[in-house]
């Protein structure tokens, strides 16, 4: 336990991990601050920003803020650079793989996804979808309210979903990957010692196997039809019922607008539904893995989901 904690503090104080801890602090602070502002604006009715309608001259009122900020930022960087050296380990050695091998810290959320999805999904399709989804946001969010001020009441669904994605699926997974993943990418609590020989029971099974004898392949190597049917039906069913839930319950309730789906139109709604439901496969897969030891929902010789 003590060794574990010592290792944890070592991780926290690693030069490359200092900014991550700083980021965590800033994210928590800004989330608290912006939510406080949002709730205050909602209470007031008119946003507080709207009371500052008059205009001020950029010189000196904005330029002096920019100048002072630059001075402070450079001062912080200087102190930081004098105080903490950037790490330089032993020379590159392709023959010796460190354990754990971790990607750069901002990709640890994606590396974490590798535990739950195959590389082509976690490493290629999902990063691409994250970019595409981010770029699609302004074109699918037709709510004219909440432009230019903090609010929660007027944009419940948009803000709620973004907070979930950013705080849990991005920031939290980065922290998890940095501090709690040890040798073999196994999970270690802060107080646990990193054991390179930790044995994790590998009795994971595929989703169809929960319903009977439906392994990915039969004993003779042929594809198990039942497996494919159950697996594909589960995926199709997830998107089908997820779509219904989103259309009939979640969107109308969150936006307090019964006609929201009609207003969005098929293309916009389809985009929203696809990205939201696909994004939610990540937490669903995590839960399935942790509770039922599910490896794949559908496994074929070509692709696994």
């Amino acid at each position, binding site marked *: 336990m003590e060794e574990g904690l010592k290792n944890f503090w070592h991780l926290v104080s690693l030069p490359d991990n200092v900014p991550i801890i700083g980021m965590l602090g800033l994210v928590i602070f800004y989330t608290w601050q912006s939510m406080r502002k949002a709730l205050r604006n909602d209470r007031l009715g008119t946003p507080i920003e709207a009371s500052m309608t008059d205009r001020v001259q950029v010189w000196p009122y904005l330029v002096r803020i920019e100048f002072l900020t630059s001075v402070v930022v450079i001062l912080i960087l200087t102190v930081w650079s004098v105080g903490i050296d*950037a790490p330089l380990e032993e020379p590159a050695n392709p023959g010796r793989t460190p354990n754990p091998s971790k*990607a750069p810290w901002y990709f640890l959320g994606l590396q974490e996804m590798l535990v739950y999805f195959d590389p082509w999904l976690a490493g290629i399709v999902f990063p691409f979808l994250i970019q595409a989804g981010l770029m699609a946001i302004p074109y699918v969010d037709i709510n004219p309210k909440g*432009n230019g001020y903090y609010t929660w009441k007027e944009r419940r669904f948009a803000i709620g979903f973004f907070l979930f994605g950013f705080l849990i699926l991005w920031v939290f997974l980065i922290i998890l990957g940095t501090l709690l993943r040890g040798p073999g990418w196994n999970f270690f609590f802060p107080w646990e010692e990193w054991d390179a020989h930790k044995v994790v029971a590998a009795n994971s099974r595929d989703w169809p196997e929960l319903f009977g004898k439906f392994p990915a392949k039969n004993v003779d190597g042929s594809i198990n039809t039942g497996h494919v049917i159950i697996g594909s039906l589960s995926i199709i069913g997830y998107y089908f019922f997820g779509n219904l839930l989103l259309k009939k319950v979640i969107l109308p309730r969150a936006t307090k607008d019964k006609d929201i789906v009609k207003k969005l139109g098929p293309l916009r709604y389809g985009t929203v539904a696809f990205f939201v439901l696909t994004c939610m496969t990540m937490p669903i897969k995590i839960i399935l893995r942790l509770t039922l030891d599910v490896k794949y929902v559908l496994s074929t010789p070509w692709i696994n989901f």
Partner: protein
Amino acid sequence: MSDIIKVPNKRQVVKSDGGGKKDLVQQFYESQIYTSIFRHDYKDNKRNRALQIVNNVFLHLHPTRVSRHAIDVGYTWGMGGITLLLFIVTAVTGILLMFYYRPTSEYAYNDMKQLMHDVPFGAFIRNMHRWAAHSMVICVMLHMYRVFLTGSYKPPREFNWVIGVNLLVLTLALSFTGYLLPWDQLAIWAITVGSNMARAVPFLGHAGPFAPEFHQLVGFGGAPDADVRFILLGGTEVGAPTLLRFYVLHTVFLPIVTAVLLAVHFWRIRKDGGISGPPMIEFNKAVTDASKLKVSVVDHLPKYEYVQGFKQVEGEQNFKEAIRKDLEILKQKSSSKLANLINTIDQAAEQNIKGGENTENKDNHQNHNNTTNTDEHQHH
């Protein structure tokens, strides 16, 4: 308008006064060197404050005036600006590092060691480069977080958000390519883990879904693992060619693309109406802009209606004659009271025209007394 015309050309003042008995500071401000650099005089007034922004190639990214909420750090968090600053810091320190670093597998690590131990301030420069780079990634994320929470991606700023997402990707790419350059264990294994993903690209990666089928159909033109990852790394694993590739991407290609997109990003901020603000502010901005184009109702609209009215009643041929008669009757009838009324209306009209050019009501200083009452006039 009037006081802009009244201020004389500074260069002429220098010639006519010729220095002489003025104190040293004053002489400096009127010297040819000062006036050649700053293009306007030093006196603190609104005009010079505006010129300070307009006449400076860097500062004129800004408008001359912004809404009060736009300089509220609690609203903007200042993260976009800090990101730009960090980009500049990494560029400057990066160039200094390039003086000492050679991107070949024989020299790279030794050059790093020299930087850390022998080069004067080498460790400091490298540390600053790395910490600024990490901070930049964080600041980009926080900037996007703020932009999302304030709904600033909404019309008319949709496309600037798209550019911003691309800048996020470029920032990550810059950081990722830079990660390899120290050529130590941390570097090559982080890049190995990161680039292993490229193996799994559907069709194009040799370990991706449908790769064997694709290889049979089209082929990668060589070994089965000569795939997209091969193109990225210049080999089947992270090696000397990878180092050179990442170096070129990191120091030439990606910074140029990023700088260009940054320019577009900033330009779009201005074109899309500056920092986002609540509807009241957008509304006021529109009113301010529109009032510059307005003519006073008192002066112009009745005249137009007056003429149109006569045109309709008297017909196209006779309306001029009818108006002439009408005006003569008006002149005869007008008592002193009526004349007074017309006079006040005229004055109001004149003030309204002046007011359209000057709508500020906070930071008003002693030399601008006339603006205060026109402002009140404006806000009715």
